[in-house]
């Protein structure tokens, strides 16, 4: 069809360009959304307060008389209420200049795994 008038094609071309522009724009925007969401999620999912609290409570309780019962309290409550596996091992360290206790804390809530060995 040699005689076909092609003058109108620039309109459809324009529509095509605009569509591509929208696509590119939204790609960028959704990236920005993702950044904000992952920042917040990263902070929420890392249980910083929980681990700090656990740590200080364990350090306080190894000097008490009923350490094993208290650690069992914490293990069971963590499991049932915070959905985290907490295991604490402790033994006295006699071969030091000051008598100290070696404490091993393991924490796992499925997303975050935390382990620490410390002397108190």
């Amino acid at each position, binding site marked *: *069809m040699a*005689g*076909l*008038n092609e*003058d*109108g*094609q620039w*309109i*459809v*071309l*324009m*529509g*095509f360009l*605009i*569509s591509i522009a*929208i*696509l590119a724009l*939204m790609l960028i*925007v*959704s990236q920005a*959304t993702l950044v*904000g*969401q992952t*920042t*917040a*999620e990263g*902070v*929420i999912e890392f249980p910083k*307060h*929980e681990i*700090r*609290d*656990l740590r200080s*409570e364990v350090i*306080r*309780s190894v000097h*008490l*008389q*009923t350490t094993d*019962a*208290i650690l*069992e*309290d*914490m293990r*069971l*409550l963590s499991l*049932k*209420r*915070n959905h985290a596996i907490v295991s604490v091992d402790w033994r006295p360290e006699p071969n030091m200049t000051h008598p100290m206790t070696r404490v091993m804390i393991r924490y796992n809530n499925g997303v975050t795994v935390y382990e620490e060995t410390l002397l108190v």
Partner: protein
Amino acid sequence: MVVRDGATLYTIEGVAAALLMIVTATIVFQAISIYTPGDTHIDDMLLEQLGADALAVMDLPQGQGELTLLEEVVQDWSPDAFDAAFSPLLRERSFAAEDPIQYSAEISYRAGDEVASVTFSDPPGYVATGRDPAVRVTRWVQIHPGHSVPIPHTGRSQVVLLEVILWRG
């Protein structure tokens, strides 16, 4: 024939372009998840941070070798004293009016191999709508024999979990 075709060419091209643009825009906008400040993770994160902060500060000893405020209010079972210390920490703001944060607190404890809970503090007159986004913060509290917590006495020092649910209401 040719001349008649040409007469509707611009219209056809215009319709085609319009369809193309609208279909693309619709598909694109439906595909991406729109982040609106209403249900932000950021707000939840900040609220959780604030609650954990307030509990941590209340769990600092009041004097060298003394009990912390948190241990004291749990041990004496005084939700009013807890509220008097906790609420101002949550609500005070200097760039805006008071933040209307509500909370409810409960204490979980171990009884043998089971875990049970008792309510510590409920917001007065609040009717749960089930729609307010809430966050949960916890804190370990040590209680000693002679406490007034309404749980079975074990005769030993024990650790209970203070659970606080926070929301804006």
